[in-house]
């Protein structure tokens, strides 16, 4: 796409010439109730309409990539939790898989199943925050608390699985840190029965609500082509009608054997790729996660959970780009090893939220202030994943 055609396509939906031309510069964030953590937009508004927006990130930049260069490979695992604290095990998994691919480490079968349980549970938890925070930003508080209540039960499950509620640091190179007994698996199965009922009720509480639909439909439309151009990934990309799921197209763990659908946005209430599609894709994806979890439960077998990994891990010289499907899209680790030291030469983390953020400046143009919030909330962005 050349520059000219892109400009044409990204033309604001509201003709800015129609409005008076007196801009007010307002500062939204970093401490604003709906900028999810510390993200800031400088909005130039004319009445209620945003003429221009400058997103500003970096308030949570902790230089995780620099920290990685100063420590052994295994020490960096707890830091990956903090890349996306809402879906911590997903980040663990991406890192572990990349290192295992580079170092040629084996993973026992049961460890992979346990990893998948952790990852899928985490994905549901993350989506619950996403679909809960969306109505919260639109002014409905109760659905958010209901979603968090379910997340709380899942945290109880993760507590048994990993020992912690957040920032689990569950996955180790060549395995996982601890095993679970059958009681946990039974609990999980029982909980999934509960979760199905919750999803149905949640949909009736807010997903079918007329006001909610009106606030989201045809707001922040990102067409499939645009979504690819902005490097959207995960639910955001799928909501734009492009059914790319790394668990399908580039399978890792045992996702090859799993039967699940990839929900895509169909524009059931408005246009494909609008904010409501991003909401409904997440809801459908939670149902798919539930299916995957049931399959895992039927297939998991006893066995060792940790393979032999050298205490001081030195990877062969070389580099790798390994990506997995995290809750917020493609989570890629670009790792460079110099083959001599026990610490990585460079780790670059590619996150879904950062890529989603790139669209803001263009999409915000011509929106109303209330839509800015709806669009931003529907992207389900987590600030530490943007800044790292």
């Amino acid at each position, binding site marked *: 796409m050349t520059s000219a055609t892109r400009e044409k396509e990204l033309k604001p939906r509201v003709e800015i010439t129609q409005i008076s031309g007196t801009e007010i510069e307002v500062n939204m964030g970093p401490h604003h109730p709906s900028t999810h953590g510390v993200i800031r937009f400088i909005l130039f508004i004319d009445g209620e309409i945003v003429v221009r927006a400058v997103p500003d990130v970096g308030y949570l930049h902790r230089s995780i990539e620099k920290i990685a260069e100063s420590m052994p490979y295994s020490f960096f695992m707890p830091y990956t939790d903090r890349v996306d604290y809402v879906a911590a095990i997903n980040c663990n998994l991406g890192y572990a898989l990349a290192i295992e691919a580079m170092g040629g480490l084996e993973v026992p079968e049961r460890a992979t199943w346990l990893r998948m349980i952790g990852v899928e549970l985490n994905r549901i938890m993350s989506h619950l925050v996403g679909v809960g925070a969306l109505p919260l930003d639109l002014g409905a508080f109760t659905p958010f608390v209901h979603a968090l209540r379910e997340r709380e039960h899942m945290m109880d499950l993760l507590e*048994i699985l990993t020992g912690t509620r957040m920032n689990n640091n569950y996955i180790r190179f060549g395995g996982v840190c601890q095993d679970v007994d059958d009681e946990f698996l039974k609990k999980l199965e029982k909980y999934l029965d509960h979760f199905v009922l919750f999803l149905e009720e949640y949909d009736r509480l807010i997903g079918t609500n007329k006001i909610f639909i009106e606030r989201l439909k045809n707001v922040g439309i990102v067409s499939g082509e645009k979504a690819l151009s902005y490097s959207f990934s995960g639910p955001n990309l799928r909501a734009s009608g492009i059914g790319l799921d790394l668990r399908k197209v580039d399978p890792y763990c045992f996702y090859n054997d799993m039967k699940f659908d990839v929900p895509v946005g169909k524009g059931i209430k408005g246009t494909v790729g609008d904010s409501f599609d991003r909401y409904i894709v997440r809801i459908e994806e939670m149902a798919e996660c539930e299916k995957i979890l049931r399959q895992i439960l039927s297939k998991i077998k006893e066995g060792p959970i940790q393979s032999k990994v050298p205490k001081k891990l030195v990877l062969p010289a070389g580099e790798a780009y390994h990506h997995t499907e995290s809750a917020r899209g493609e989570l890629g680790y670009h790792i460079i090893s110099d083959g001599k030291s026990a610490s990585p030469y460079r780790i670059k983390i590619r996150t879904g939220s950062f890529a989603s953020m790139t669209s803001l400046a263009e999409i915000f143009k011509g929106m109303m202030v209330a839509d800015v919030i709806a669009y931003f909330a529907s992207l389900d962005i987590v600030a530490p994943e943007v800044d790292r």
Partner: protein
Amino acid sequence: MTTYLKNIWEASATVFEGMAITFSYLLQRPITVQYPDRLKEPVPKTLPKNYRGRLMVDTELCTACALCQKACPIDVIEMKGARTERKKGLTLIYFNIYHGKCMYCNLCVEACPAEEGDEEAHHTAIYFKKDFEGSGYELKDLVEQFIPREEAIQRLKEAEETAAKRAAKAAAESAPAEPKKEGNA
């Protein structure tokens, strides 16, 4: 006109439905519990086996091998082992844990070689206890000294003495050998 009426109908029907759900929650018991005073049993008892609460050290079991200290990515553990006359092997001089820094990653526990107990009450020398309430008013309240300070200073003194004795002994042993070397040279 039909869409007009449909809009009105949809709006009122879905609002009605949502309100029925919220009302039904009004008739249920809340799911939250009144912490900490109205609990059926204390929270630590309800926690799973390997729950990561606060770090705890069994100073009796600890062999002062410092593996946990090396395993910690962020220097939470500050410890020292040295030879004293108290016991064979290394004696723990001091063992401080900076709870304010700890990120509960479990790496130190996995590194610990000293284990004790059966299947039920199994624990390593450094382990997570189920207690999680550890707030304090000052930063130094968050540092737990498992060997009390006075004791630690005492032990440090002993260790220095032992070290001095050993050095003297070593010197005495190697003293006759040294002139020979010089002589050879």
